[in-house]
């Protein structure tokens, strides 16, 4: 009897140990058969199966080939993505740079084995080691799409494209002779502090800002002073693309940081707008497909990451979303994007972009994100 019991116990403990080993999640050694199911947290419009427009479908083919049924949970903000991943039950997330490091630090996502992703070779070599998803030489996911935060301006006010971000940061008269007070907008998120830091990097080189996401106390203080001085100029701190488009249309907003999505939308509406990346460069976002630590369907997830790096899929997403592909071949590989699509969306700007990443203290050297948030709230409130 007791022998029997012991055998049972040891079998149980072996099984437990084995499962614990699986839980500890070394990157997968080989991709096996699909589990038949895949759950993704994504931005709206990122994972399309032709339901909005038949031509835009990069899911059906994947399901046919791999047998993995894709279900998508859309999230509207980076914060929502972080909280959904914290809750668990999803395999993949398309995380932006202001979420990805938080996910890695919180151990919500696991490193991947790029050797198991044949299409990894397609990835833009400039992105393969992006510090918003590669930590300690471990790669946490595959790049998906990216885009710059451009300077949107009204072409009736600016006959020539503004060459510096100072039109939104410093009080001055715009080319139409009227002051910029009440006619410029800033982004309603603490990550905008990086935009101000990037401007100061060239406007005040004596501060010695190297990286707008790594600011020491003195640099940080100078950046906050700039933002305080900007506050009275601000018409509205925007966070809603639709509201910003209506402000440009109806409220006489002449210049603002913005996204390609709004520029394209306003142009399609025949509004007198254009966009530029001034001499200081710009911040930008780059999204990464990341694998949950406890993903239930890792094989299907690997298959999707591989699938998502095909030039055609990448080009189609870029065409639908107004973004840029992480795979250079996509610029010529998608009919939907067209020959000029990459250029229109800003492909040549890559070198001028400081990509979003969550500011971290790194042992007290730099000001961390939580203080960015608190201080930006105070500045928006006029303190």
């Amino acid at each position: 009897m007791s022998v029997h019991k012991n055998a049972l116990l040891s079998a149980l403990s072996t099984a437990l140990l084995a499962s614990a080993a699986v839980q500890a999640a070394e990157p997968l050694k080989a991709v096996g058969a699909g589990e038949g199911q895949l759950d993704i947290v994504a931005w709206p419009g990122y994972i399309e199966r032709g339901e909005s427009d038949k031509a835009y479908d990069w899911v059906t083919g994947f399901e046919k080939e791999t047998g993995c049924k894709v279900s998508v949970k859309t999230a509207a903000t980076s914060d929502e993505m972080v909280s959904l991943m914290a809750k668990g039950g999803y395999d993949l997330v398309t995380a932006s740079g202001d979420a990805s490091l938080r996910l890695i630090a919180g151990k919500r996502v696991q490193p991947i084995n790029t050797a198991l992703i044949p299409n990894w070779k397609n990835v833009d070599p400039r992105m393969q080691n992006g510090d918003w998803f590669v930590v300690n030489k471990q790669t946490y996911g595959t790049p998906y799409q990216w885009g710059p935060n451009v300077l949107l301006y009204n072409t009736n006010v600016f006959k020539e494209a503004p060459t510096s971000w100072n039109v939104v940061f410093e009080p001055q008269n715009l080319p139409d002779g009227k002051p910029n007070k009440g006619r410029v907008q800033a982004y309603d998120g603490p990550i905008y502090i990086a935009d101000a830091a990037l401007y100061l990097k060239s406007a005040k080189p004596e501060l010695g800002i190297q990286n707008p996401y790594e600011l020491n106390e003195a640099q940080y203080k100078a950046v906050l002073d700039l933002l305080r001085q900007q506050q009275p100029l601000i018409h509205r701190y925007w966070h809603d693309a639709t509201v910003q488009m209506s402000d440009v249309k109806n409220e006489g907003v002449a210049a603002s940081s913005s996204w390609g999505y709004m520029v394209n939308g306003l142009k399609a509406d025949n509004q007198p707008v254009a966009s530029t990346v001034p001499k200081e460069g710009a911040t930008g976002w780059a999204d990464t497909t990341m694998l949950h630590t406890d993903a239930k369907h890792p094989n299907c997830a690997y298959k999707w990451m591989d699938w998502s790096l095909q030039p055609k899929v990448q080009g189609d997403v870029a065409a639908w979303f107004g973004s840029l592909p992480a795979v250079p071949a996509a610029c010529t590989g998608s009919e939907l994007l067209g020959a000029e699509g990459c250029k229109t969306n800003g492909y040549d700007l890559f070198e001028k972009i400081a990509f979003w990443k969550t500011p971290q203290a790194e042992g007290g050297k730099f000001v961390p994100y939580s203080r960015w948030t608190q201080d930006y709230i105070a500045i928006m409130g006029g303190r």
Partner: protein
Amino acid sequence: MSLALEKPGLRPVNSPLRRFSNLLYRRPNLYLLMLLIPPLIWFGAIYLGSLLNLLWQGFYTFDDFTMAVTPDLTLANFAALFNPANFDIILRTLGMAIAVSIASAALAFPIAYYMARYTTGKTKAFFYIAVMMPMWASYIVKAYAWTLLLAKGGVAQWFVQQLSLEPVLHFILTIPGVGGSTLSTSHLGRFLVFVYIWLPFMILPIQASLERLPPSLLQASADLGAKPRQTFMQVILPLSVPGIAAGSIFTFSLTLGDFIVPQLVGPPGYFIGGMVYAQQGAIGNMPMAAAFTLVPIVLIAVYLSIVKRLGAFDAL
């Protein structure tokens, strides 16, 4: 006596169910308790329990470096509420809630008075529907619609232009605390949206209190030679205070908790609701968010105690 008359054959069977019902009959309190326990558990454990749990988290420590929450107890979060930046948020929200309540009462009173005194039958039904109709439409749609109404090219400013009142508008927009760079990003614009959205919640309680007002009192007042103004100030208004107070509970607390309108209309700067959302969402600073949720609870408790003195609960 009746026991003595009872025939042995008709004696009730002493089944467990019967004994149980006897027990309940003999102890009515037990019966009451059984009925009340399920809702009390719901209210106590799920409602109050989670609320207290949330407030308890306000004592936890948030570490700036790791951005992690640890259960080390501290008062720092509640002390931080009095930081100038945070205190601004509280004052801004409180000021708006008071202004909106006063304006709603002033606007609602004549409408409610007309509804209560001068309408009957179909006209009354029409007014009821007209007052409640806006509540049938989605709150978010209404808030978004106002951003367009107040925009520079929008309807509101078209009227201002037609009446050649533009200099007046520009002057108002320069007043600190009222103005802003444009109408839709001014305090005034936000105030208009709030008053519009919460007005029905003020009209209906005032109307109910005015309907209870006996006409004989007004006749008596007139008989005794009171002027209309005296009647209003000394009879109607005091008797309708409970209705105004009840309505203001809605407008005050709804404004205090709102975080959508402040995002869409008005100048930069958070309200309490937006701050809670930003703290728990953007930074994951749950302790600070929990500390902020205490603010509306305290403010509304104070407000209710004031309103109770005004007699808002007398008619309950």
